[in-house]
């Protein structure tokens, strides 16, 4: 598994965890009848902070821990291919395109909730759901392209 693949795998794991945390918190709010704007926007903030920290942690984890594991297993100095060549950039672009497409669909679907008479809170909670989901699907697509080729 290349450095880029490891990086995407760690990022994917973190965003799946964030998505799970978000869904659990939203369901808890609905169950406890505390689904209001204050709680939802606080959750938005937590998700944003988690996403930033998660991305930074993913890079650190892949670099440092990956290097240590490589050294222990093979007794060779780690050769980290952290440059992005044309194939990596192409895969990254294809993943980003998937993320944008899914985000756009998500925004449209979120807006549709107004048509069905749902309160704005539903739209806002769906917006961030589709944002994180788009990141997860994009990472899965990137991994698929690394494995399958294109």
């Amino acid at each position, binding site marked *: 598994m*290349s450095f*880029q693949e490891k990086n995407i795998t760690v990022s994917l794991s973190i965003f799946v965890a964030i998505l799970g945390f978000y869904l659990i918190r939203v369901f808890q709010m609905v169950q406890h009848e505390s689904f209001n704007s204050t709680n939802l926007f606080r959750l938005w903030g937590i998700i944003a902070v988690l996403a930033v920290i998660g991305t930074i942690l993913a890079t650190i984890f892949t670099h440092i821990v990956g290097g240590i594991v490589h050294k222990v297993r093979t007794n060779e100095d780690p050769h980290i*291919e952290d440059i992005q060549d*044309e*194939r990596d950039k192409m895969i990254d672009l294809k993943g980003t395109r998937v993320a944008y497409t899914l985000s756009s669909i998500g925004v449209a679907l979120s807006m549709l909730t107004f048509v069905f008479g749902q309160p704005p809170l539903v739209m806002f909670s769906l917006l961030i759901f589709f944002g994180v989901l788009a990141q997860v699907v994009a990472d899965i697509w990137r991994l698929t392209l690394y494995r*399958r*080729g*294109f």
Partner: protein
Amino acid sequence: MGKGRIGNNIRKLRFFRNEMTQQQLAEKVGVTRQTIIAMEQDKYSPSLELAFRIARVFEVPLEEVFSYQPEAEST
């Protein structure tokens, strides 16, 4: 218009260059070893620029490294 298949002789050419390693070729053309592996397994078609750089490393014309088969012939 359908997509054709781009094949290559990189593995063979490396063999005839004193078993040049994938890492050595990757460093000469400025990509990662993973990209060389993907090309050898026909999982990635390089850009025109990279294709020329690879041909230059092996000192052969482009056609000796890469071949193109249109969809009808490749199926």
